[in-house]
């Protein structure tokens, strides 16, 4: 398959790749760019571990071809903390122990940031519903809800 040039804007940095058009954004991040914070859990859009932001919206990187993301602003977990300061959602995850093995965590955090931004963190019930696309087999759900609630309140105040 012929390779094509793909230009990606990730966490404010420009990257140029020569890749086959069938390469997913997830595999471009993990296998070509060394950005392994975005996780592969199922490769079929079933688990949410690969959640990233494209133009500020949460997107599953495993169901997105890298070429589709060209010219759009991609944010991954590596781009969330600014100048060494944790994002409030990251800080809340640490404080509330909202993870164990850590593998679903980047996807949970990216979803949580978007969930709050979307206005879907108004109640515990709403948080549970709008975070339901991110599986956590360690079972950190109650602590994830607590972390999202806490971060949402920090943003609101």
């Amino acid at each position: 398959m012929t390779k094509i040039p793909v230009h990606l804007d990730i966490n404010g940095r420009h990257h140029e790749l020569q890749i086959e058009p069938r390469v997913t954004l997830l595999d471009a991040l993990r296998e070509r760019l060394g950005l392994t914070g975005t996780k592969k859990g199922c490769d079929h859009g079933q688990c949410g571990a690969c959640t990233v932001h494209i133009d500020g919206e949460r997107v599953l990187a495993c169901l997105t071809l890298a070429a589709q993301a060209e010219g759009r602003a991609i944010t991954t977990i590596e781009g969330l903390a600014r100048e060494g300061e944790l994002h409030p959602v990251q800080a809340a995850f640490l404080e509330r122990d909202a993870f164990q093995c850590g593998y679903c965590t980047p996807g949970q955090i990216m979803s949580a940031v978007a969930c709050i931004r979307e206005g879907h963190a108004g109640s515990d019930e709403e948080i549970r519903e709008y975070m339901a696309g991110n599986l956590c087999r360690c079972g950190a759900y109650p602590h994830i809800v607590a972390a999202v609630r806490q971060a949402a309140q920090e943003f609101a105040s």
Partner: protein
Amino acid sequence: MTVHNIRVGESKRGDASDGTLAEAVGGRLSRVDGPAKITGAAKYAVEQQLEGLAYAVLVESTIASGKVRAIDTASAEASPGVLRVLTPDTIISLRTASDWLGTTPPDKPYCPLARDITFSGQHVAAVVAETFEQAVAAAALVNVSYDETPSIVDLSDGKAGDGIAIDAMTKEWGDAPAAFAAAPVRICAAYNTPREYQAPMEPHGLIARWEGDRLTVWEPSQWLDGMARTYAEWFEVPFENVRLVSPYIGGGFGSKALALSHGAVAASAAKMIGRPVKLVMTRPQTFTGYGGRAATRQTVTIGADRDGVIQSIVHRGVNETSIDGMWVEPLGSVTSIMYATPNFSSKQNVVRVNSVVPGAMRAPGENPSAFGIESAIDELAYEVGIDPLEIRLRNYAEQDPHAKKAWSTRQLREAFAAGAERFGWSRRSPKPRSMRDGNQLIGWGVAAGTYPVRRAYGEAVVRILADGSVEVESSSIDMGQGTYTILAQTAAETLGVPADDVVVKLGDSRFARAGVSGGSRLAGVMTGAVHKAATSALDQLVGLAISDPRSPFHALQANTLVVANGRIGSPRGDGPDVSIAELLKSVGRDRIEATGDTMPANSTAEDRYKNYTTIAMALPHTEGDYSRYSWCAHFIEVRVDEDFGTVRVSRVVSALDSGRLYNPKLAESQWKGGIIMGIGQALLEEGIMDRRHGRIVNNNLADYLVPTNADIPDIEVISVGIPDPHSSALGGKGVGELGIVGVAPAIANAVFHATGKRVRDLPITLEKLI
């Protein structure tokens, strides 16, 4: 561990609400590996970036039984980027390795790609290519033809038969059948659990790299030394030549403790092409590339008097295993110890079916065992008209009924009391279908759980460096239990330094050896080993300070000194007060190092190898005068839609006895995680077979339903444990497995209370209620 350059505010360090300093053992210190995990900096095993990496993709059998007639690899080999296609005929020959008991293996070759097919999803070929995409595309071009033979799909298959009696599982005392026959109240019921899958979020996979006859494997692992042993035996290289690296593990739940055939394929491929090879299972492959929890069947009969006092328990169990492998899921493990009974009989068979050999999944044995006995005693409670909590207290086992030994500690009565109080059990209306909220039937159920305290010997290195910082090294692992954190707390407390000054390095088989991280044993083993090593390092440090002529303490002629907050001084507070770094500088030392192991003093090198690479030296939980278990009681509320039969868990209060908690914040997380997996087991999880082809059909995370955030209510956990000196050096018992045990029966009991329907067949899906 990755060095973190992220500032973490003081408030994020964990609270000290109960008066315990957050970083002391028993304090609520936040995960020290947390910053790496929440920023994406934590590099999991297959995320290592290596030069010249090639990608392998597996091809799996599409029949459940028969022989591979031919494998046509021509199209795959001609596909762009393909470096090699591996088949049973072209893969290099390996030797059969020993099992986890260390039993000498048969002297015969081992081929991780199968010619003889015993289950659907067996690895038959693999494609290695320059890129992942090329390997995936070429793997689809491998054309395998088969001679198919009839298969046994599962336990319900007419061809399955009664199986093989496992005499080692038989437990009997008194005359159980006679006592049952004579009992005024008798109940008898069958309880089934389906195939369940660990489904860790990180799929199994590895990167294998050969340098001459040295092999490095980056692979998520619950047991580096055990897996290194297997790789060494497969490839006939010395154990020391194999290095396993597994700094973080994306969940294991029992499934990542052993080297598996896909690992042999990847390491073979790397050797054959002379390049590092990465092989990661697809999510569907994780359902057949290794075994989940075996499907089980149990019959529990209880004979009791009219007051509900048990006179006899007769228990029969069956679990499935594979055609050529053996897995025994010990189904009588809880049955035989939970309640006092003068007469008891438990026997177990295993039945061969065309499946991958089942494996360990969170509380293997105890989990399905508890589903049987904890459902059955609930049935007895209704039969005799006694509250389900009261009947458990009436049959409380004051000592281990099987081993006939005293419990080391058993805070189960306290768990029942604390859980019932918090849950409001006394407000329960006893009759089924007597509590409702609109069209929702409400049910309250209780069940107990337990897990034995598995003990083993451990080893650790503790190093005090020139700048006063401390390193702890061990080839044990952290898959989310909090090993990094509790070992930092242990070293910090023992040495008298801030936890921030301790760096814990885990997950590399070049570090001090470690046994399996399974059976909830790691925390107890490793805190003991680190405590011992740190004590030895502290003794060296104080010894130097007292005796070295260059030390500022030399003139003091003290017998001992105190180290606190990284500074050394005399116990009376007079004399010098210097930092550890200053002392080391003054005596001209750049480090102090101590290795601590908890092996018996006369242990040989062979003993050590056996201890760390097999489970043969694990200490029985009933060794000596005591029987050692963790305990718990779950109180669960369900809401069942009266029209549709949908079940929602709406409230959970669990009280648990894991002895002393090394870090309650992290232990509570693990308990809740176990409870949540138990909710999945009760209501959602089930491997569904295509009976025509003997193939699992829901082999993905959209169809094999694990709990989502929206399925889980608030969960309250209460620690009722007390330090147990017979279970571990620092007084803890097991945490990780305990939480799941008893959850499914508590939910089934709650569903009965809500609906009047007894579901004995997991999961409790709506069609079983309408």
